[in-house]
């Protein structure tokens, strides 16, 4: 397994290379005007300006040359400068990634907790009213478009009930905690600023719940089916024959085995959410990587598109890797072989 993981790690750069190349070529092949963010509308007919801008942003070179330059810079960690924000893409991403990670982490915690709970009880009381109702609830989150359900939740919880504050990571009036991890919750904790921590968490609650809810269905369904599978296994009978009460059977024996496939999906979901949180970020004005990606794609901001893609792919590959490691950790059968 260790060997396998090392091999996977060695493979990551190659995959990233592939992803970066595809991203580059794809964005170059769109038929929009790449200068739209760079050359003002009034100057479009001024060849002098157009060529000056092209030269400045390296767009005057033929495609293959640009590709080589892009790749070369990339290897050195330089993702270029965003057309939109006029800042280095790496910096934009560094600013925005923690916001997304914090949101996604919170969403995953919510999604996993609810998902596991519902899956567990659903499997235990299969086909009961509870099972169907709970699964219905779990699926609801992934059955409604987030851009609508998010607004509804905001309206209910924020405007009507006033349980949660509005959008954004913090009240606009507050200053963010000192940047240590970029996770406001952790940073405010480290700073010992309880009021800020409370504010951070209350801002996080709703978007994380909306996003997490979309994961609940996936997790609950998987936990339920793999638990049912596990419950039909011989070792469950052995556990019962040992006189283990149902709770022990379910948690110690069935669940531990059922978690193995769940882990795989969780890793995948986490990675997916990093760029998949786009709509949640848009609705909740969350300054994350997802909304950055959309803005980049909409305005054909090549460097930003490339940067986000690479970050997304890296997240995906890392999550996959972490999944494999977790898989090996949870599944002792793998450790020795290979």
């Amino acid at each position, binding site marked *: 397994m260790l*060997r396998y993981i090392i091999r996977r790690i060695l493979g990551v750069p190659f995959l990233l290379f592939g992803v970066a190349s595809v991203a580059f070529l794809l964005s170059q092949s769109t038929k929009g005007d790449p200068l739209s963010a760079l050359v003002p509308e009034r100057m479009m007919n001024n060849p002098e300006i157009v060529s000056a801008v092209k030269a400045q942003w390296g767009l005057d070179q033929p495609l293959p040359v640009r590709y080589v330059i892009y790749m070369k810079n990339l290897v050195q960690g330089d993702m270029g400068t965003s057309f939109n924000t006029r800042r280095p893409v790496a910096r934009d991403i560094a600013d925005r990634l923690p916001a997304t990670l914090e949101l996604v982490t919170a969403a995953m915690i919510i999604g996993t907790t609810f998902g596991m709970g519902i899956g567990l009880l659903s499997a235990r009381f299969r086909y009961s009213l509870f099972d169907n109702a709970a699964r219905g609830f779990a699926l609801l989150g992934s059955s409604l478009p987030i851009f609508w359900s998010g607004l509804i939740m905001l309206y209910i919880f924020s405007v009507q009930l006033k349980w949660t504050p509005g959008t954004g990571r913090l009240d606009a009036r507050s200053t963010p905690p000192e940047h240590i991890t970029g996770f406001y919750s952790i940073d405010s904790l480290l700073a010992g600023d309880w009021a800020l921590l409370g504010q951070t968490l209350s801002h996080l609650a709703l978007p994380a719940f909306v996003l997490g809810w979309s994961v609940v269905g996936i997790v609950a369904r998987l936990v339920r089916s793999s638990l049912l599978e596990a419950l039909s296994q011989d070792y469950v009978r052995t556990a019962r024959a040992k006189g283990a009460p149902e709770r022990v059977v379910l948690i110690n024996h069935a669940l531990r085995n059922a978690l193995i496939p769940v882990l795989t999906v969780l890793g995948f979901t986490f990675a997916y959410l990093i760029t998949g949180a786009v709509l949640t970020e848009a609705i909740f004005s969350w300054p994350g990587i997802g909304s950055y990606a959309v803005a980049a794609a909409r305005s054909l901001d090549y460097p930003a598109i490339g940067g986000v893609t690479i970050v997304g792919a890296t997240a995906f590959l890392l999550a996959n890797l972490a999944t494999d490691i977790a898989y090996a950790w949870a599944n002792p059968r793998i450790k020795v072989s*290979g």
Partner: protein
Amino acid sequence: MSLHNLTPPVLDVRNLSKVFPIGSNLLGTKPAQMLQAVSDVSFRVAQGETFGLVGESGCGKSTLGRCILRLIDPTQGEVLLAGTDITHLNAAEMRPLRQDLQIVFQDPMSSLHPGMTIRRILAEGLRLLKLDAQTEAARIAELISLVQLPADVADRYPHELSGGQRQRIGIARAISVNPKVIVLDEPVSALDVSIQAGLLNLLRSLQERLNIAYVFIAHDLSVVRYVSDRIGVMYLGRIVETGRASDLFDNPRHPYTQALLSAIPLADPRAERKRARTVLEGDLPSPLNPPSGCSFRTRCPRARPLCAAERPLLEDTAHAVACHFPDPAGTEATARATPSTLQTGEGA
């Protein structure tokens, strides 16, 4: 003993070895470990003869069978089918020869395509013969009656049949192309005794009728004894003792064979009570990391330093054993190892 010089063996396995690469190194260029599943196995089977292969689970019986059929490629050695070396043929060259070489598997459920009717399953096997529709239908009917099943099974699906019936279909498929050799890989292990008996009878009668050579793989010694003319006992990929069935059972020379025989429970309480047992210690060593010298020495009551130092070779006699300290052979010990067409029972 007289026919062997006239009829060449229909199946001749020579020094066959199979190594499985396990895992791979960091770059995926080389395997991390080598698993020696079959090592240097040789035997011959004559027309109409049954060669039994016994051994514990994991000793390489099925691998050997698959190598013979070229379902996997042997690492070393040759397989000669009626004198033709088939080891190096490619898939296309192999195809016409498949007619002569068939296999029956252990698990009667997984060896039949669950989505096909029995008729289609048999027709699939008959494709090699390229029959026209009518002949094919007739042949299928004939095969079904040959394996003693009612004609209406033809339109049923495998899951609608019992285990014994399924195994009969497996046999029907194997004999459908009139093969010279059938490898039977534990064909009765999954069946209950009452059903197993019928199958063994069927196999016997088919062999008599069609003059097929069987390589009969099993781990149940009584069954192997019952069906085989000659037997090879395998241990960790090697044949450690081989000889005529009666010789081997009446006069086992290898300590492993002796232990195997003494471990068979007898369906006879009185005999059981009186029986002296040699219970082997320990387990089968891992084939990834076999013991040096004689591979059986870790469990052998007779093991001495020599056994660890040097691997005993299989003798070149009719009742051959690979052991440094074997029991002496019986009466036939001096005869040359030959394929035999002896009908057990008559000669015993």
